[in-house]
């Protein structure tokens, strides 16, 4: 009987601790959640940004401005601070797994620019989503076709790599 009582007490204490823990977590979560009207930019898909995000928020326009002149006038095509890279890294996908254009309010740039009421004309000329997202379907089709073409030719010549290629297509080898 004693053991049962001790067990009961223990369970009650544990439940109590768990409850306090959960409510604490919930309150912390509430405190960190920002108001709805604040911009909430989507997370980038790439790794580290070229600059600390805090700095980037303040200076991205100047960096892009400088970079554009370097690229166009001097042909300096490095990746650092390139708009192409920004767009690739900050692409936002919709439900059908396609990247959204700047017309969609979920677009990375729009999340802040709508809030700040600053109109950007970058996308009058530049594509607002990565090119890869447009070609993915056709590229994938092309690849599989190429592989099959290679396979048939190998079959004809009786190449010894035949089995390896077959396994690659079957997904056994990466």
């Amino acid at each position, binding site marked *: 009987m004693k053991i049962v009582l001790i067990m009961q007490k223990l369970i009650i204490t544990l439940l109590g601790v768990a409850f306090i823990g959960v409510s604490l977590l919930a309150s912390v979560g509430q405190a960190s959640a920002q108001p709805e009207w604040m911009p909430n930019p989507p997370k980038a898909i790439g790794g580290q940004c070229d600059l600390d995000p805090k700095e980037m928020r303040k200076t991205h326009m100047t960096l892009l401005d400088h970079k554009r002149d370097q690229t166009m006038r001097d042909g300096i095509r490095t990746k650092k601070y390139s708009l192409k890279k920004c767009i690739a890294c900050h692409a936002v996908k919709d439900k059908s797994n396609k990247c959204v254009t700047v017309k969609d309010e979920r677009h990375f740039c729009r999340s802040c620019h709508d809030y700040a009421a600053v109109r950007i004309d970058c996308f009058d*000329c530049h*594509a607002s989503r990565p090119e890869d997202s447009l070609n993915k379907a056709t590229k994938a089709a092309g690849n599989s076709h190429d592989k099959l073409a290679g396979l048939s030719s190998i079959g004809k010549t009786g190449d010894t790599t035949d089995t390896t290629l077959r396994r690659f297509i079957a997904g056994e080898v990466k």
Partner: protein
Amino acid sequence: MISLKQGQIEAGEHKTAPVDEAGRRKFLKGSAAALALAPGMTLFAYGEAITKPAEQAVTTKSRWGLLIDAAKFSDEDVDACVKACQDENGWRDTGKPMTDAQWIRRVNLKNKKTDEQFSLPMMCQHCAEAPCVDVCPTGASFKRKDGIVLVDKHICIGCRYCMMACPYKARSFVHEHIEDQKEHAPRGIGTVESCTMCVHLVDEGKEPACVKAAPEGAMVFGDLNDKTSKLAQLIKSVATQQVRADLNLDPGVRYRNI
């Protein structure tokens, strides 16, 4: 005398097969390896420019140019070049010939006395003394140090003076909103555009798209300043012409057999 009439280019009539990019890259990679194996010999044998590092600015050391042999072009060949340019730079015929973009076009020529007919590709001639650069009120129309004439669309106000000034009718104006442009070829409403000599490819040490699509030897791309380049050697050894040489614009694009 050559009169420049706008060629009729019909989409869907291009007979050449799509270029196998992957195959070409592999081949180029292979040849690059060969270069690495015997650097001095191969490089000097062809005198081709070595790829500029991405972080290095272009200089006046090079001046990029083209030699176009009109005798080697059939109508279909020119159309293939046009198609290659469209695919590379993402412009299209939309069935509105009065306002459609036209970076490169087919020009049909006829000698009135002999009835001889032929066609040639016509695009920005990348003049050393470019009239479009002279007239631009904002400095948007500019010449890169390596001779490639471009439009800075960031500061182009769409006044179209350059279109008026160009004797080759090489420039066009973007009338409608465009989406999903090519990453390397931004183009947008209210700005003027023209052939960029595929500057994004040139900076990577590659040839322009039209040169790749043209028949063997019909278009030669290279550095006019490098006397050992294939282009400079050709210009030295065969008779070449400038279109409207009387204007003294010193175009970077030269022609043969016109």
